[in-house]
């Protein structure tokens, strides 16, 4: 039963992903601005032959449908085109940077969950108390402060004035652990490289907090409001009449129900985290996909932008798919 539902979800996601790829592709081709000009730099001292050679190299002289066909067949071979600027395959460039972005997004997500779940539960249980009001104040700040500003403030406080945390990069040169997954934290644990673990954690903290703060605020709010609603339900009072400890009532009975709308929101937050990723990576000099995209935008390096945006959209679709699947585990009614 559940397997069928999951399969359904996956099958729906595939045409969505396809449509996204096509839209991005077509979009990039129809906007004004000739990429070849950009590639050449606005120098203008280029011969006709060179322009034509470049155009044919990148298939720009073919009709859009042909370009699309080439592109899509390329996808199945793992070929997303070649960067205008660096003449390296887009796929390679993206793959180099992807682990860093994933690590940052995970760090931010874990941070927001660590913050949101206890505060959300406590605020709801101790409704209208000081803890509740403080928690709510915190969430308001979280959603009102833009991530890029927050990161600058954190840098000023922790790096410049207090000097305890580093600012740039992911790890000092030469400290990187053995490449197993590409995620430094995991790799350093797996290879028992405690120095690398310490360094990569130190570098991960500030970016994760800046990126995760807004998500933490949003998740806290929705958890709190669903907990408040759940705690008023009859089945909670009934659980108490059974003689359950208050702890069990909250964690086992109430939380399970309150998580249902919360999990959906977490899925949406993944999208926000991916988007904010770009800015945070730029500020912290984090060598991830986001920073690649930002530089590509300024360099008008279309294949990379294209490939990266497709990647982001796909990750977002997959994340929501995972959330949907998790939802079928949390909410028994969806299996029917």
């Amino acid at each position: 039963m559940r397997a069928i539902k999951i399969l359904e979800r996956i099958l729906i996601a595939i045409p969505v992903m396809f449509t996204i790829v096509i839209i991005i592709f077509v979009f990039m081709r129809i906007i004004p601005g000739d990429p070849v000009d950009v590639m050449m730099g606005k120098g203008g001292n280029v011969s006709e032959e060179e322009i034509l050679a470049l155009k044919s190299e990148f298939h720009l002289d073919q009709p859009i449908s042909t370009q699309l066909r080439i592109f899509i067949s390329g996808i199945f071979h793992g070929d997303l085109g070649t960067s205008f600027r660096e003449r390296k395959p887009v796929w390679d460039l993206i793959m180099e940077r992807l682990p860093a972005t994933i690590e940052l997004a995970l760090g931010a997500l874990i941070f927001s969950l660590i913050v949101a779940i206890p505060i959300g539960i406590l605020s709801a249980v101790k409704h209208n108390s000081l803890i509740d009001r403080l928690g709510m104040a915190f969430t308001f700040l979280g959603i009102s402060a833009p991530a890029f500003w927050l990161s600058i403030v954190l840098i000023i406080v922790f790096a410049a004035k207090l000097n305890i945390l580093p600012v740039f990069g992911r790890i000092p040169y030469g400290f990187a652990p053995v490449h197993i997954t590409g995620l430094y934290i995991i790799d350093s644990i797996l290879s028992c490289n405690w120095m690398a673990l310490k360094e990569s954690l130190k570098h991960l903290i500030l970016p994760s907090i800046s990126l995760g703060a807004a998500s933490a605020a949003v998740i806290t709010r929705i958890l709190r409001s669903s907990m408040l609603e759940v705690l008023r339900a009859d089945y909670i009072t009934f659980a108490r009449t059974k003689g359950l400890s208050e702890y069990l009532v909250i964690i086992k009975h109430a939380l399970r129900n309150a998580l249902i709308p919360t999990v959906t929101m977490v899925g949406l937050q993944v999208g926000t985290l991916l988007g904010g990723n770009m800015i945070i990576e730029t500020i912290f000099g984090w060598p991830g996909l986001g920073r690649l995209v930002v530089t590509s935008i300024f360099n008008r390096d279309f294949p990379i932008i294209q490939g990266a945006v497709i990647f982001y959209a796909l990750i977002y679709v997959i994340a929501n798919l995972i959330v949907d699947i998790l939802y079928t585990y949390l909410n028994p009614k969806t299996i029917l």
Partner: protein
Amino acid sequence: MLKINNLSTHFFTNRGVIKAVDGLNFELREGEVLGLVGESGCGKSVTLLSILGLVPYPGKIVGGNIYFQGEDLTKKSSKEMRHFRGSKISMIFQDPMTTLNPVFRVGEQIRESLIIHNRKKLSKVKEKEKVLELIESVGLPSPEQIYQQFPYQLSGGMQQRIIIAIALSCNPKLLLADEPTTALDVTVQAQILDLLRRINRNFGTGIILVTHDLGVVAEFCQKVLVMYAGKIVETGLAEQIIFDPKHPYTKGLLKSIPKVGDKKNKIQPIPGDVVDLAALPTGCPFRPRCCKVMLECEKGEIPLKTIESGRQVRCLLYAK
């Protein structure tokens, strides 16, 4: 077994103090079935919750004692009360759909109440056996199947039976039932009442049945308490209350029940609205709606008078 002594439970709200239960006194012997009757909002449910110490915020027990098997429950801490809840005193609620947790399977919910109170760890197999036994004992067929179901997959009557199974899992001495049949169809009502009757007979479980339906009272209860505005206004045996009501409120309740075959007379509801507990009139709270109201009814507290053995009325008509 249960003795309530001058119990008062008040709610402290923005609109003022609501005296949901005000000076309540009654007794329940072992295996007795007591009916608690009254309109919505007159304090019946709060009484039950007070016994278990589960009065929701902003309510508090402000006075009185609740003696259960000799122990005063009002003096117990929350942790101590947990020993009573579910094992010696159980409670079932009105709407079975919202009483069961929607995300857990039904069998699991029964099992939970078993393992809370049983210190000796039974093996998993034994636990499941006991749960299946319980499901069968409340009259549900194919217990194996039911065990796996989620609450929304069962009908209202079946859900209520599961809830009763949960309540009985540790053989309580006292079962508090808050309008258990109100949300169910009439035919299912009869079945549930039947089940409760069997439980009372076979296990000697005392039952306090809260209801606003005098028909249920007539069928099932031995003793009856009629409540209004947080106070008891009449007590007696079921037959006495039904066939010889004394208090005007009780009479009004009986008159407002449509009788089969009674085509001529119109239903006579009690005039006026349910009393607002935050703004109680002075004297007798039933005064604005009473057809036999007198001048004296306005002044002071009306005491509860014993007119015969086991019969009490709170009304100046019988105070002479």
